[in-house]
C-alpha cells in the first residue's frame, strides 16, 4: 500500500503535481501515437499490400517516424497568400488541444489518473467535439476551395456521427450507473456473467450493439477510411489540411493519430474492462482489486487493449472503400441513431426489470 502512496500521492505543491501530470499527459498522447503509426500505418498496411514498408531508417525502419518528424520540422512554414494568418496558425492548436483534453480523463490504475472527474465520460465526449472547430477554422482560413469543402464535409460528418457516439456510450452509463470512468471500470470488474465473476462483466458482452456503434462512430469521428470524405485525396487533394506544411501539418498528423489512440483508450475503458485485469487473476495472485501494483500494471493492460482496438481501426481503414457523402449521412441518421436509441431503450428496460 505504502509504495503506491509514495509514488502517486506525494506531498508535492500543486504546481509540481500539475507539471508531473502534464509531462505524463504528453507521454500518454505521443508515445502510443508513435507506436501505432509505426506498427499499423507503416508496417501492417505494408504487409497487407505485400510490400515491406520503410526499411532504411533504423533497424527494420523503426526510426522512420523520427525521420518524418525531422523532415517536417525543417520544412518551410508556408502561409497561402490570401489566408487569414491568425486563424490559419491557430487551427492546428485547437485540434491538438481537444486531443490533450480528451487524454486527461482516462484512468490507468487505481490511483494513476490525471484527474478523476465525476462527469468522466461526458466530459470526454464534450471535449472531443472541440476538434471540429479547429478543422472548420483550418478549412476556412486556408482561402482555398478544396480546404473549404473539406472543412464543410468534416463539420457535417462529425456532427452526424457525434450523436451515435454519445448514444452508444449512454448504454454503458446506464448499466454501470455512473459517468465516472473509474466507476465504470469498477462496475465491470465487480460484474458477473450469470453468476460467474471470473471474467468480471466487460460491457462488450452485454453492450455489443453499443460497442459496434461506438467503433463505427469513432472511425467516422477520426475521419478514417471508409469515412474520409473530408480529406478525400482523389477529390479534395487533402481537404482541410491541403495548405498546411511543416510543423503545422505535423500537428494535424499527430492530432489525428493520437486521437485514434485516445478513443481506443476510451473504448477499452468503457467496453473492455479498462486498466483492470480479469478478476480471476486477482484470486490467482491473492490480491484485491485496488492492489498498489495495478498502478504499474494498469498502463500496460491499457496499452494492450488500446493496440487491439486501434488494430481494428486500421484494419477497417485499409480494407474498405470510401463511402459516398449521402451514403455516409444516411448511415448515421437512418441506421446508427435509431439502433442506438433502441439499444438505450432495451438497456433501460433490463436495468429496471432485471
Amino acid at each position: 500500500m505504502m509504495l503506491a502512496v509514495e509514488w502517486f500521492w506525494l506531498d508535492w505543491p500543486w504546481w509540481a503535481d500539475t507539471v508531473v501530470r502534464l509531462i505524463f499527459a504528453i507521454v500518454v498522447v505521443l508515445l502510443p501515437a508513435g507506436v501505432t503509426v509505426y506498427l499499423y500505418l507503416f508496417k501492417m498496411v505494408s504487409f497487407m499490400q505485400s510490400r515491406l514498408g520503410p526499411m532504411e531508417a533504423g533497424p527494420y525502419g523503426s526510426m522512420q517516424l523520427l525521420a518524418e518528424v525531422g523532415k517536417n520540422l525543417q520544412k518551410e512554414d508556408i502561409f497561402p497568400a490570401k489566408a487569414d494568418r491568425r486563424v490559419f496558425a491557430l487551427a492546428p492548436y485547437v485540434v491538438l488541444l481537444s486531443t490533450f483534453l480528451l487524454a486527461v480523463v482516462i484512468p490507468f490504475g487505481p490511483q494513476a489518473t490525471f484527474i478523476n472527474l465525476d462527469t468522466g465520460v461526458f466530459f470526454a465526449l464534450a471535449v472531443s467535439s472541440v476538434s471540429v472547430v479547429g478543422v472548420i477554422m483550418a478549412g476556412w482560413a486556408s482561402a482555398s476551395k478544396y480546404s473549404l469543402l473539406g472543412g464543410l464535409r468534416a463539420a457535417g460528418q462529425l456532427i452526424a456521427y457525434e450523436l451515435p457516439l454519445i448514444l452508444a456510450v449512454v448504454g454503458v452509463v446506464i448499466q454501470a450507473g455512473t459517468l465516472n470512468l473509474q466507476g465504470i471500470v469498477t462496475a465491470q470488474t465487480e460484474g458477473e456473467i450469470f453468476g460467474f465473476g471470473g471474467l468480471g462483466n466487460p460491457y462488450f458482452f452485454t453492450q455489443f450493439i453499443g460497442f459496434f456503434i461506438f467503433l463505427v462512430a469513432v472511425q467516422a469521428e477520426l475521419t478514417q477510411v471508409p469515412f474520409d470524405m473530408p480529406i478525400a485525396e482523389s477529390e479534395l487533394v487533402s481537404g482541410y489540411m491541403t495548405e498546411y506544411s511543416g510543423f503545422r501539418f505535423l500537428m494535424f498528423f499527430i492530432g489525428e493519430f493520437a486521437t485514434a489512440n485516445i478513443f481506443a483508450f476510451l473504448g477499452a475503458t468503457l467496453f473492455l474492462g479498462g486498466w483492470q485485469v480479469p478478476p480471476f487473476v486477482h484470486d490467482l495472485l491473492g490480491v484485491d482489486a485496488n492492489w498498489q501494483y495495478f498502478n504499474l500494471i494498469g498502463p500496460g493492460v491499457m496499452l494492450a487493449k488500446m493496440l487491439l482496438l486501434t488494430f481494428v481501426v486500421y484494419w477497417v481503414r485499409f480494407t474498405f472503400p470510401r463511402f459516398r457523402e449521402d451514403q455516409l449521412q444516411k448511415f448515421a441518421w437512418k441506421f446508427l441513431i435509431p439502433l442506438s436509441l433502441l439499444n438505450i431503450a432495451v438497456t433501460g428496460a433490463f436495468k429496471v426489470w432485471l
Partner: protein
Amino acid sequence: MMSSALLAIQSTNPIALTPNELWVINTFFYVIAAVGIVAALKMVTTKNVVHAALYLLVVLTVVAATYIVLGAEFAAATQVMVYIGAVMVLLLFGVMLTRAKIGDDGDLDYDSKWIGGLSAVSMFAVMGYSLWEAFGTDELPADMAVQRTGQVANSIFSQYIVPFEALSMLLLAALIGAVVVARRD
C-alpha cells in the same frame, strides 16, 4: 496527500479551501472574466463575420470555465458539448455555406445597433440589480463542494421535473417546427 484543491475535485466529500487556494481561484476568475469581456467586445466590433463567430466561441468557453470555478462540472461539460461542439459548429457551418469572405466584410454594420446596445445595457442593469438584490454580499460556504452529477440528476428529476418536461416539450415543438418549415414538398 495532494494539494487540497485537487482533492476537492477528486473526492466525494467537501473539503474546505485554504485562503491561499481561494486567492488562486479568485485570480483565475478575474483572468477568465477579463478574457471574456475582451472577446465579447471584439465580437461586436470585428469586421469579419467568421472572426465574430470565433470570438463568440471564446466567450462561450469562458462561460464554461466560470462554471468550473463555481464547481458546476456537469454544467461546464454540457456548455462545451452543446454550445461549442454543436451550436457554434452549426453556426460556422452556416456562415461558410453562405458568406465567408476572408478579410474585411466592410458592410458589417447595422443601423439599429444603438437599440441593440441599449437593450444589452438595460438587460445587464436588470440582471445585475436582481442578482445583487438576491445574493448581495453572500459568500459561498467555506466547504464549497463540487456539485456531483448525481445531485444534478436528482434535482432535475424530482424538484424541477415540471420545468424540465415543459422545456423538453418546447424543444420538441421547435424541432418539429423546423422540420415543417424546412420541408418544401
